[in-house]
């Protein structure tokens, strides 16, 4: 399907660029904001750096954060959901209350507070707090902190349904341990909706990163990401609108590809479930 093709392109692009070894941080002051030309297929940005290379590198950053954070959030959510769904009772109620509480919070304001925290005040050693990659890690952590709830809810309802199935009861009567049951029997059956949700959330994380970068709380230069390229370009929008067009278009295409992929997966799973039922 067309959508998968887009997704693949987004994924494969960045490593390719890195392999080509062009220095994306080479500042060329004489060549600022130039139009497309052979060495620079998409022109140069405000510091004379090659736009296409930065786009690809930015893609690498944005996609890494997106996939990593979405997966981590899914993992955390799955854990919570499995425990809540399987054990039931007060564990279920407590976990669900916590989940609901987090869902009820106004998202963006809290993220802003969390993104602006001074890590050293939290006791994180200064070397870590000031390292180059900290902004990446910070955004990923934030995305996980607010993203696990969707997965948790999904997994919980799927677990509730699955735990009453025969093969699970059979395993229980055979004396299988709880973790074993969770891992071997229940998990495979909740995978379907989980994968769909995770795919969709990759897009959300990418959008989140772009908003945080817009607010100045996201990735720091000279690290490139689509979000920072976009917010850098918005100031020059009246004179070099294409600079904003490219990263914006990339974000748009990638997110929409994720969404379409997720939707397609969902339809595929639905049909399979329908057939089986």
């Amino acid at each position, binding site marked *: 399907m067309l959508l998968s093709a887009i997704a693949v392109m987004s994924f494969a692009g960045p490593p390719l660029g890195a392999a080509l070894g062009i220095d994306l941080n080479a500042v060329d*002051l*004489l060549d600022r904001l130039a139009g497309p030309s052979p060495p620079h297929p998409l022109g140069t940005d405000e*510091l004379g750096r090659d736009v296409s290379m930065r786009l690809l590198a930015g893609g690498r950053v944005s996609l890494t954060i997106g996939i990593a954070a979405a997966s981590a959030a899914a993992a955390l959510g799955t854990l919570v959901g499995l425990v809540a769904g399987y054990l039931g009772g007060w564990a279920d109620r407590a976990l669900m209350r916590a989940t609901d509480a987090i869902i009820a919070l106004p998202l963006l304001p809290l993220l802003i507070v969390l993104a602006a925290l001074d890590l050293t005040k939290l006791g994180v050693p200064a070397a870590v707090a000031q390292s*180059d990659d900290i902004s990446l890690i910070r955004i990923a952590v934030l995305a996980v902190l607010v993203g696990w709830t969707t997965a948790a809810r999904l997994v919980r309802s799927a677990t509730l349904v699955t735990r009453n199935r025969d093969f699970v009861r059979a395993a229980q009567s055979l004396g299988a341990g709880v973790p074993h049951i969770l891992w071997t029997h229940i998990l495979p059956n909740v995978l379907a909706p989980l994968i769909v949700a995770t795919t969709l959330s990759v897009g959300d994380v990418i959008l989140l990163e772009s908003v945080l970068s817009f607010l*100045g709380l996201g990735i720091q230069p000279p690290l490139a990401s689509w979000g920072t390229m976009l917010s850098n370009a918005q100031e020059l*929008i*009246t004179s070099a609108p294409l600079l904003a067009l490219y990263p914006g278009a990339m974000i748009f295409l990638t997110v929409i590809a994720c969404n379409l992929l997720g939707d397609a997966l969902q339809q595929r799973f639905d049909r399979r479930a329908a057939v089986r039922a």
Partner: protein
Amino acid sequence: MRSLSGQRRRRRLPALAIALLLSSPAVGEERDSLTIGITQFPSTLNPNIDAMAAKSYVLGMALRPFTVYDADWQLVCLLCVTLPSIENGLAVPVDLADGKKGIDITYTIRPEANWGDGVPVTTQDVRFTYDVGRDPKSAVGNAELYRRITGIDVKDDKTFTLHVDKLTFDYAAINDFVLLPAHIERAAFADPAQYRVKTSYSTEPTNPGLYNGPYRISEVVAGSHVLLEPNPHWAGPPAHFRRITVRAIENTAALEANLLSGTIDMVAGELGLSLDEALAFEQRHGDGFRVIYQPGLVYEHIDLDLDRPALADRRVREALILGLDREAISKSLFAGRQKVADSFVNPLDAGYSADTPRYRYDPARAAVLLEAAGWQAQPGGIRRNAEGQILSFELMTTAGNRTRELVEQVLQSQWRKIGVDIRIKNEPARVLFGETVPHRRFDMAMYAWISAPEDVPRSILHSSEIPDQANGFAGQNAAGFKSPEMDRLIDALEIELDPMKRKTLWTEMQQLYAAELPSLPLFFRSDVFILPKWLSGVRPTGNQYPTTLWITDWAVQP
């Protein structure tokens, strides 16, 4: 269902069209209103609490300070009649009890100065403002001014004498002594601890009696705009605009769009677009506007932490500055609008010396100096010394400032060519200035010093002003510059009344600064004013006193 929503949409369109007709601004001929766009909204409007550039911009139209530096960087009297000086006898040096010299300065308030409710401005207001300033509980920001004044003698309703405890050459400048209306604010000051909450500037900002300038504030919508209208009791030159709106739009792209769409008429230079944004704007849309670049007293530089072993070596510092092609940066990033600085003294300043050593781009010589300092060139690119350490520094500046981030990346790539590795680490302004710089936790910090004409650099270069535990990290000599010679020059300069002798001292000071390089000079930042073609009379000052102080000169060009 779809038809219903479609109908709703169709009904909205004509309503919108009517709305547009109603709201389109009055065209051309009788232009009597002005809308100014700035990037920040002033918090409290009380002139003495919580200093902010946006606030002084707005209050420049509504409150008169006693003295300011004008566009020619001369000290002038706004609220007073004559500028006191020793020559005209209004300023009298006195010998104080502890052997130091103080000065008694006499000012006369303009006889026609009135508050917006008709009450004249009198020495009652002077004494009241002084009391507020001296009270430790009143939340006044800069209390140093009031500390220096040990007493006030009131001669009559309009004349008073200040007893100042230190004789400095700029004795007549009491620019920060902005009067508060005693007849209105006295009630709020009944409990000094509550003054900042009860001040009428916050509870009742549209009270005309709070303002003595050509305009008064007639409407405040917090976070959005401030509306000003002429002060009926203003007795100075007439104000030309019947209504001035100052609108705060923080996002600069939106600010530009507003300018293009006519929602705002001009962008203030003091709080507007950054230089590279303005350059890009001018390229595209410069025909419809008048764009003025005013170089100012904002000295963009890089503080070097002189306690780091690599930076303590003077040769390394010189190599660093030789390895920067600042002219190229100025030309290509700033279209030559921000001049390269040789020291912290602006070329337009009275104290400027053209003989200050100038460092031109010379990477060859930089390499020689680095080798001599023990940093050997390596095949990999980054130099190493005998102990195996690499020549690498962390460069910090305010995050989110595009221009600075651009400059940083250029610096990084230029220094790499002479074998110096730079790691960029930016922090939000609040962190950088709140913690990192005062606690000296940086290798290199790029930021700006804002000064005034002939501003003696005590707080930034005197050895007693190095921020440390003892002074509560309040000094601004973050580089840690300790030079007895500089200390002597600073102490001598402050009390030197003879302008010729001062010039000599300034020259020596700049020579010393350029020789020692405690910080690397970069540029003097320019403010950019984007004005409509029909507006005349706006004269950018280049110093920290806003152009709005001369609002009565602004007029519609016929």
